[in-house]
């Protein structure tokens, strides 16, 4: 892992291997609201999964499983596009 390593230990040319790279927790960008799902309304249409700019919708196979709050920035697009109003932005 390359956390402020000496130059001798960095990969030549700055190649980053995703398997080893950290992913900053951009969930910290949220300003007080987060999406939550009413599973009884969710029809697993997968639109929220497709629309999410932060790949923060987790699936179980092809069914909605939950939001990845480590990365969700709270943009609310999922709540807007959900065709069955299953997603609500709630105060954190």
């Amino acid at each position, binding site marked *: 892992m390359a956390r*402020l390593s000496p130059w001798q230990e*960095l990969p030549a*040319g*700055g190649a980053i291997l*995703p398997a080893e790279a950290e992913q900053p927790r951009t969930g910290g960008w949220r300003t007080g609201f987060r999406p939550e799902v009413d599973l009884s309304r969710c029809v697993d249409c997968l639109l929220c999964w497709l629309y999410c700019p932060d790949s923060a919708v987790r699936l179980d196979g092809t069914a909605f499983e939950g939001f990845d709050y480590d990365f969700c920035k709270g943009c609310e697009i999922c709540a807007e596009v959900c065709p069955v109003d299953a997603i609500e932005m709630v105060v954190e």
Partner: protein
Amino acid sequence: MTPLLLTGGEAVAHAMRQIDPDVVPVYPITPQTPIIQGFAKFVADGRAHAELVNVESEHSAMSAAIGSALAGARTMTATSSQGLALMAEVVYIAASMRAPIVMALGNRALSGPINIHCDHSDSMLIRDSGVVQLFAENAQEAYDLTVLAPRVAEHPDVLLPVLVCLDGFTITHSAEPVQLLADGDVAAFVGTYTLAHRVLDVAHPATQGPFAMPDYYYEFRRQQSAAVEAAGRVLDGLADGFERLSGRRYGPVEAYRLDGAERVIVALGSTAGTVKDVVDELREEGEAVGVLKIVSYRPFPSELVRGLLADIASVIVLDRADSPGGAAPLQAELAATLYGSAAELHGHVYGLGGRDLHPRDVREIFAQHAPRYVSVRGEPCPV
């Protein structure tokens, strides 16, 4: 094998044929065109098997070369002058992305005025880019250095673009006897190219060409500096093997008649050949003169040069490029190298835009009768 009568450009094209790279992106510019035309004919006749990509500018030539080299393909190209200037942005990136690319540089003056003849201003433009620059004195050296280049570029401690510099027209277009190696010998010498984190290795994906903030950029640059220095050691390490193959030995410099010399000219490229002839004549006349030809301009073999020149009374550097308002590049290099030594350092700029350097000019230089800017009209002579 009998030597062939080849221009420098043709000789480099033959070297490329024998290396048989995978991908060759090309864009034409005088005076490197004989190289790419010669190579294109080899491909058209099935004597070389590269993907020859006729890109739409030199900037794209180097860009395609990076994509190709990082995808694991042996990649070569050629350019000169304005072409190098246009691709300069990408040359720096090729070096920093550690892309092994071999490029023939037909040294030609930078515009303006536009001029197609030889000087070294194009090499000097990318002096600080982190690429390796090897200078040939003649067509034979242009051929040999091209054969050596992939072994330097692709070495795991190096992984950098290597430029084989040959004087425009003087070498690229002048025919000389050139001893080619056997095809099989070149193939065995250059071997196969393998690279970690190949772009096409989808099972092991890597992100290449990232964005680096002040907390990381400097370390990558330091790493690059070490890689250029490693190229010097790699070149040294290849000397024995190449000599066994060819009978010719290459080091970072060629010291010609330095023994007992009081005055030594330091030069790059074909001019070193001219100076050798004058050195021979002057030695016959009892003058203690010699010439130090720099082969590896980057990395510059500073310690070696200092060792060879530290006791010379007068070191005269010839620059075929200028740095207006400051010290000419090779002179600056020698000044840094010789700082603190007893040698007296003199410098001249000559030959810009293809202005010939005649043997009589070299005599005047050795005699310290030449102006700083040699053979330009209107320059006052030193008293």
